[in-house]
């Protein structure tokens, strides 16, 4: 691979970085060129984006929870007392 092109390691790092801030134009172009040729880096990028998607999914917090599960009265009272004594 030519020296002016990013290798997979550099692309993987910059793909991650691009999820946190806007990269300079020339870097975006080099990444795009690399991704056109490299199925592994394309896969890496897609999987990082997927990880973000399910990390932020409301389903992560809500869907599996059994609504019949509740704090037992003893535990509820213990927590309430702990909060009360901490805020006093």
């Amino acid at each position, binding site marked *: 691979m030519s020296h002016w092109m990013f290798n997979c390691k550099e692309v993987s790092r910059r793909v991650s970085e691009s999820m946190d801030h806007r990269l300079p134009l020339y870097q975006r172009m080099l990444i795009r060129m690399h991704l056109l040729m490299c199925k592994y880096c394309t*896969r890496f990028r897609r999987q990082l984006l*997927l990880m973000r998607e*399910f990390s932020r999914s409301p389903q992560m917090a809500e869907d599996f929870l059994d609504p019949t599960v509740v704090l037992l009265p003893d535990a509820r009272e213990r927590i309430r007392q702990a909060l009360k004594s901490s805020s006093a």
Partner: protein
Amino acid sequence: MTQITEEISSADPNLDPETWVDQYGDYLYRFALARIKDQAVAEDLVQETFLAALQGRKSFNGQSAVKTWLSAILKHKIVDYLRKKNREKAIDDIDTVTQTVEKFFHNNGSWKIPPSEWDDNPSKIYEQHEFMDTFFKCLSELPGRLSKVFMLREMEGLSNKEICNALQVSSTNSWVMLYRARAYLRRCLETFWFNNTKGSRKNNFTFLHLSFSPSLADTSLAKSSK
């Protein structure tokens, strides 16, 4: 009601700690129990979450719902708990993660352990309860600062500036930390979820921390290069 709680509740009725247990206790307990599977521990984590929220309530900016804020605190508590539970075997320093991520590549920067195709339907992955268990366990495999930076950015959606302030790191450092966390977590999920047959996934949970190490990466390398 104490003076402190009066001040808080007068500003925002949802921020009255005395109502938290009734309003959010069951929800947080369900979430903790779903991840931890231990009633007593789940109760303790809920209590710790409320106490941490009480201490940190001044920093709550009100941009998110109180429930979301408390859930975020609980998720950190769960990952901390899982990490402590596996402390003897878990990776406990960032250098080890760095070395592991380095091993994904050859010296010339090409993939040594290329990402494999994830064959689950992406839109359905997080509808599977066991997947979320694997996800949290993989998160707990990361050193504390790396799991924290990942959770702040990817789960809570904080900006880079907010993360730099929270962790007292430079932007460059936060990007490097996020890269290592994402690369490691991606590989962990691949190893213990996507590359496993559904029947064996459950069993793998118990030795997750034992298996996902640089030596495992080497083993996978041998497989992938065949």
